[in-house]
C-alpha cells in the first residue's frame, strides 16, 4: 500500500466515491465526490497529536469490529494510506455541541478545518476497474447463535482482531472478562449455504476457519471444535493444511449447530454429529461464527453508476465466466476481487492482475474494435415514444430533440430495440428486416421442396 501511495503514476483519492460515469471506453468522464474529512490534506503531516488529545475516546472502532475504541478524529487503521485522519462528525464534540475544537487548537500545521465541505472532481479516464469487495454477513441475524446477546459469541472478524498483535488485546485471545478460554467452538457457514440468508458458498470460510483454529492452538492451550457442513479445501496446499489441523488435535464435528445457549457462565453448543448420528452438547468458553461474504450494501448503486449487471446472488457479473472473467457488460469497465464473487486473497490478487492487464492492453492499443452489427436509427420514422430507450440493456439509446439516437460505442447489437420499435425506425446492421425476411423466405422454400 505504501508503494502504491508513492507511485508517481498512481493518485489515491481516499474518502471519495464515484457518483457519475459518462462517456465510453477510452473517453470516460467520471465525477468523484471527495467527502469532507475536515483535515486539509496538503497541511497534515500525520503526526497523530490530534488523535492523542481528542477527548471523545469511547467510540467503538469499526476496524476492530467493535472490540476496541477510537477517537472522533481518527485514522481508520494504523497503516492507512494516506496517513491523514478524518473527523467523524456524528461523534465529534465540536460538531455536536459547537465546543471543544481541541484538535484544531493543537494541530501544529493548522490542518483541521471544520468548515470543509464535500468537493467534486471530474476525471477523464480510459478504463475503469471496480474492486469494491464484500460485506461480512451480520451474524446477529442468526438469532439462535446469540451473537450480540452473549458476550463470548464473536464473529470471525472479531477473532482476527484479537489475534492482531497491535489489536485491542495485543494479540491475546481472551474472553470479554479477561479469561484465557479452555475451549472454543468455531461454527462454519454462518449466513452461507443457508436458504434463509444466502444460498451461495462463501468459499473462504472453511480455509480461514482452519487458519483461525491453527492460530488459536498456537496462542492458547484451548480445545478447538470446528462445526462444519462440508469441508471445502480446494486450492493449492489447502487440503494438506486441513490434514495438518487434524494432526494438531482440532476436533472436527460434521453438523451445523442448532443453537448456542448459556450455561453456568459458559456457553453450550448444541449440534448433531451427522457422522456419528449423535446429539452433542459441547460446553465452551467462546464461540466463533465464521460469517459469510455478501455483496456490499450499495452494490446496486455501484452497478448502476458503472453500468454493471449483477448475478442472482447480488455479486457483479463478469462478461463471460470463462472467456471474459474480468470484463463486464460495459466495455472498458473491469471487475476483480470479492465484488465479483467470494474469493480469497490469492484469487483476488490473480484476478486483479488479470483485470489490470486487460485494461492496459486496451489503453496500449489506443483504439477499440467495435462490433459491426450495431443499431441505426431513422430519424424520419422515429415517433419519439422512447420505448427502445427503456428496453436497451446498455443505455445506448437516447432521445435527443424528440427522436432516438444510438451511441455506437455503447451498442452491443442485441437488437432488442428493433424488436421493440413500433415505427420500424431502428435497423440492426447485418440483421436488418430485409435480410431476416429473405432468410426466412429461403428457409421456407427449402422446407417446401423437402
Amino acid at each position, binding site marked *: 500500500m505504501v508503494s502504491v501511495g508513492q507511485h508517481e503514476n498512481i493518485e489515491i483519492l481516499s474518502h471519495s466515491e464515484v457518483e457519475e460515469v459518462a462517456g465510453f471506453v477510452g473517453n470516460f468522464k467520471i465525477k468523484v465526490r471527495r467527502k469532507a474529512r475536515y483535515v486539509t490534506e496538503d497541511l497534515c503531516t500525520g503526526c497523530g497529536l490530534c488523535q492523542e488529545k481528542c477527548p471523545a475516546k469511547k467510540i467503538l472502532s469499526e476496524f476492530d469490529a467493535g472490540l476496541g475504541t477510537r477517537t472522533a478524529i481518527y485514522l481508520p487503521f494504523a497503516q492507512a494510506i494516506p496517513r491523514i485522519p478524518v473527523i467523524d462528525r456524528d461523534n465529534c464534540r465540536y460538531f455536536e455541541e459547537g465546543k471543544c475544537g481541541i484538535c484544531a487548537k493543537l494541530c501544529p500545521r493548522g490542518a483541521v478545518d471544520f468548515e470543509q465541505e464535500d468537493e467534486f472532481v471530474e476525471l477523464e479516464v480510459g478504463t475503469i476497474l471496480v474492486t469494491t469487495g464484500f460485506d461480512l454477513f451480520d451474524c446477529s441475524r442468526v438469532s439462535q447463535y446469540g451473537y450480540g446477546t452473549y458476550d463470548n459469541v464473536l464473529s470471525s472478524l472479531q477473532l482476527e482482531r484479537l489475534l492482531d498483535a497491535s489489536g485491542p488485546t495485543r494479540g491475546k485471545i481472551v474472553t470479554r472478562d479477561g479469561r484465557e478460554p479452555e475451549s472454543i467452538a468455531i461454527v462454519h457457514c454462518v449466513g452461507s449455504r443457508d436458504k434463509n440468508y444466502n444460498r451461495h458458498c462463501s468459499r473462504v470460510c472453511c480455509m480461514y476457519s482452519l487458519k483461525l483454529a491453527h492460530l488459536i492452538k498456537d496462542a492458547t492451550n484451548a480445545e478447538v471444535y470446528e462445526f462444519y457442513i462440508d469441508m471445502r479445501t480446494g486450492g493449492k496446499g489447502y487440503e494438506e493444511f486441513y490434514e495438518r489441523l487434524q494432526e494438531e488435535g482440532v476436533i472436527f464435528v460434521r453438523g451445523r449447530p442448532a443453537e448456542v445457549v448459556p450455561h453456568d457462565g459458559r456457553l453450550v453448543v448444541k449440534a448433531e454429529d451427522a457422522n456419528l448420528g449423535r446429539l452433542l452438547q459441547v460446553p465452551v468458553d467462546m464461540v466463533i461464527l465464521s460469517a459469510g461474504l455478501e455483496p456490499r450494501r450499495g452494490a446496486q448503486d455501484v452497478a448502476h453508476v458503472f453500468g454493471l449487471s449483477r448475478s442472482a446472488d447480488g455479486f457483479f457479473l463478469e462478461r463471460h465466466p470463462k472467456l471474459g472473467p474480468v470484463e463486464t457488460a460495459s466495455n472498458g469497465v473491469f471487475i476483480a476481487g470479492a465484488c465479483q464473487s467470494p474469493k480469497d486473497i490469492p484469487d483476488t490478487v490473480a484476478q486483479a492482475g488479470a483485470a489490470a492487464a486487460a485494461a492496459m492492453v486496451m489503453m496500449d492499443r489506443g483504439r477499440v474494435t467495435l462490433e459491426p452489427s450495431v443499431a441505426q436509427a431513422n430519424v424520419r420514422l422515429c415517433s419519439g415514444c422512447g420505448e427502445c430507450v427503456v428496453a436497451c440493456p446498455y443505455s445506448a439509446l437516447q432521445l435527443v430533440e424528440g427522436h432516438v439516437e444510438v451511441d455506437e460505442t455503447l451498442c452491443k447489437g442485441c437488437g432488442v430495440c428493433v424488436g421493440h420499435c413500433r415505427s420500424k425506425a431502428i435497423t440492426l446492421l447485418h440483421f436488418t428486416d430485409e435480410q431476416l425476411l429473405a432468410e426466412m423466405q429461403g428457409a*421456407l422454400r427449402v422446407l417446401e421442396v423437402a
Partner: protein
Amino acid sequence: MPEPKIVAYACTYCSYPGADLAGTLRIQYSPHVNIIRVLCSGRVSPELILRTFREGADGVLVLGCHYGDCHFVSGNHRTVKRVAVLRRILEYAGIEPERLRLEWVSASEGERFARIVDEFTETIRGLTPIEQVLA
C-alpha cells in the same frame, strides 16, 4: 397431408450453438425445422413472427438463452413479454397460439434442442396447415 414447415429463430449465444451441438452429437431431429440465427432472441420482432406465418410457416419457434443467462443481460426478458402477448393476439386472430413457442436452450443443451424441435413438430403436425387457416 404435407409435412409441417417450421422456422426457428435462435440466438447466437446459447440456442444456435445448442442446435449446433445437437448436430455435432449426431442427434436425429425433425427435418421440418429450419433455423435462422439472430444475435439475441430480443431481436425477433412481433412483425417478423407474423410475417413468418404469412409466408407459410406452420409453426414458429423462438429460442433464447435461459432466463437470467441472456448474453445481452435482459434481452430475453423482453422476448418473454412479447411472445406472451403475441400468442394472445394470434388466438384472437383465429390462429392457434400453439403455433408460436418460446423455449430456452443453452449452448450445452443439444439434446434439449432436439427434444423441443421434435415435440414442436408433433404439435404442429396435429394442426391444420397454415395455408388453409389463412385462406
